[in-house]
């Protein structure tokens, strides 16, 4: 029986516990939050053996095999280091770390200790994402990707999250280099990173505060972001984050030399985009019918998955955790290659560095070459 512990008892920890409960061969032996009341409320709601407010106490007394870190990102590196030093495998929620250099150090430490790590990029393990990956691996694109488009939006209105964030000048989100973006965009960036082969793509980022947030007096939380990523003049990608555009998309499109694919996470739909064109008016009638058939096929797949009780909102997280645990128990490869975790972190570093420097969008910097990732 794999002994699991959770550190951090906030909102996302509930999703982790629910997913872990649905996985055989594991049990949550302990949870920890430096706020004892938060640890206790979690303990009262889930089948957990003990709760702690001190991490080292949890590690010493419960000796977990795996620790899930579900705290705010600023603490990920430090907590993961302590857990690895204590001999635990570690699942770190997204964003993996605040800086890519920290991610590199964690991976080195894990390798040195013979332990495993994974990042909470669970959206990449949703049913629809796995179907897309299978098609790409089967060569549906007709070669390496030529272009990708990743939309990862987060709708913000005048109340709710915006109210809490904007009304609190000390909110922990504000202390991240990428602020709001850093806490959200890693899912969308990781989708692109998965299909890049280079460690040093070029990144050009433009970000600004939306008119809505400006009207609420906000000046520092960037909630509109557009990014161009280019890999050795071979593969390009656009990344879009928006708090204001509707629909607030979570989509990924990938195009190869022969065909393309479109993944819609919200609708849990995967659509093939055939590259072959029909002649004349046939193009106007046959492909729309074929597309309608594809959508119906997606509905049928979703229904089957729902009836099989495997269509939870966080189905991807359960799958990722299950794969990670199996990689520990059976010695199989980690579900997310470390290269991909690092590349995601590096792209994010570059985006935030450009936003902080307000480059390359100022007049003076327009003629300068775009930044590249320094290894």
């Amino acid at each position, binding site marked *: 029986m794999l002994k699991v512990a959770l550190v951090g008892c*906030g909102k996302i920890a509930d999703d982790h516990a629910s997913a872990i409960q649905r996985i055989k061969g594991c049990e949550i032996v302990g949870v920890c939050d430096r706020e004892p009341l938060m640890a206790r409320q979690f303990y009262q709601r889930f089948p957990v053996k003990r709760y702690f407010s001190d991490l080292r106490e949890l590690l010493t007394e419960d000796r977990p095999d795996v620790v899930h870190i579900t705290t705010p990102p600023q603490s990920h590196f430090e907590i993961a280091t302590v857990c690895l030093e204590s001999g635990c495998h570690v699942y770190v929620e997204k964003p993996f770390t605040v800086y890519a250099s920290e991610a590199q150090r964690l991976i080195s430490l894990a390798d040195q200790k013979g332990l495993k790590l994974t990042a909470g990029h669970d959206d990449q393990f949703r049913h629809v994402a796995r179907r897309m990956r299978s098609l790409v691996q089967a060569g549906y694109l007709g070669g390496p990707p030529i272009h990708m488009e990743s939309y990862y939006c987060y709708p913000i209105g005048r109340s709710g999250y915006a109210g809490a964030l904007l009304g609190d000048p000390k909110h922990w989100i504000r202390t991240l280099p990428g602020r709001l973006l850093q806490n959200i965009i890693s899912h969308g960036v990781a989708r692109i990173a998965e299909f890049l082969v280079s460690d040093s793509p070029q990144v050009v980022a433009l970000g600004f505060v939306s008119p809505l947030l400006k009207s*609420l007096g906000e000046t520092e939380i960037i909630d509109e972001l557009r990014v161009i990523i280019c890999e050795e003049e071979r593969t390009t990608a656009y990344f879009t984050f928006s708090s204001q555009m509707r629909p607030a998309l979570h989509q990924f499109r990938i195009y190869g030399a022969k065909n393309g694919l479109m993944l819609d996470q919200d609708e849990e739909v995967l659509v093939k985009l055939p590259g072959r064109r029909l002649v004349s008016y046939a193009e106007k009638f046959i492909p729309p019918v074929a597309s309608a058939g594809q959508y119906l096929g997606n509905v049928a797949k979703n229904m089957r998955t729902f009836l099989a009780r495997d269509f939870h909102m966080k189905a991807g997280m359960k799958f990722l955790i299950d794969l990670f645990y199996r990689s520990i128990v059976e010695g199989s490869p980690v579900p997310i290659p470390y290269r991909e975790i690092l590349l995601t972190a590096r792209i994010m570093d570059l985006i935030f560095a450009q936003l902080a420097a307000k480059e390359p969008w100022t007049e003076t910097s327009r003629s300068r070459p775009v930044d590249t990732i320094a290894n």
Partner: protein
Amino acid sequence: MNQTAGNDSIIGPDHLILVTGASGFIGSRLVAHLIERGFRNIRCFARSSPALGRLEALCGSPRNIVKIEVMRGNLLSRDDCTAASASAAVIYHLAAGRGEKSIPDAFLNSVVTTRNLMEASLRHHCLRRFVNVSSFTVYTNTQKRKGRLLDETCPVEQHPEERGDAYSFAKAKQEEIVIEYGRRCGLPYVIVRPGYVYGPGNEGITGRVGVSTFGIFLHLGGSNKIPFTFVDNCAEAIALAGLKHGIDGEIFNVVDDDLPSSRQFLRQYKKNVRDFPSIYVPHAASYALCYFWERYYNWSQGQLPPAFNRRVWHASWKKTRYSNEKVKSRLGWAPKVPMAEGLRRHFKACRDKGYNA
């Protein structure tokens, strides 16, 4: 004017009163009410900035010879709690986290904040009353009582986690910790449990009437009485709970008189605000829906959200009568805004806000 300050009150007009959640729907009315009662030293604590304008307007009002201090902060910060509660003789604690659908968020912003505030206020040694504003949602209402009457003697939910509702969980746990601090640390607390607070500023339709879960409005309340309390009436009851002698450790339910049934309210809403299609779901059918949803939720290990279950049904849609005897007799409260007038103002606010679009 000056109905309470200095008379039948545990504090005088110049004692400092702290109101948390002061910029909110009820909080802003409470502050205005305290000023009307002649209290001249009020500290308004709130997190979000846009709504604070209303309070700041009160500060600048020439007719008020009162000191209103507007303090922005976060009750998750112990330093902010210490600053906010310094010298406060009475604390009205209205700030709470609804948490949307997240139990940890609601808990953090209701229970942890309350603990921080209580600890900070106890350290100052000048607190005379801590009024915790709770909700009817804490009642389990599963018992079969004679006449189906719900009052302060009714049991609260012992397993709020099983209801699956973030707000209910947080409110039940908040009350637990307030009572614990009362017992353990001598906190002089009073708990106020309003029913559904309505009026300009809260234009939605309470879930006790029905829900729009399936794209059409399911009318679940039927002939049930809805425990409405108009916001100004509620604010007055809360104010009195912080001022009256001899009520430490007491709990007060607040509902108005002449409660309309769910059906009456819905009919009036459609007539005065906007018409929309709705389907009446009889009690037996709504109970069956909750029962089967709960079974499916457990069988599928949470594939659907826990929106319906039997605990929710008992708390929200079971036929129940409500009593306001205790709040009337012990606090001398009476709803000054009659139900008909309250509903008229409420519907007008709904129209003004574009709910009839």
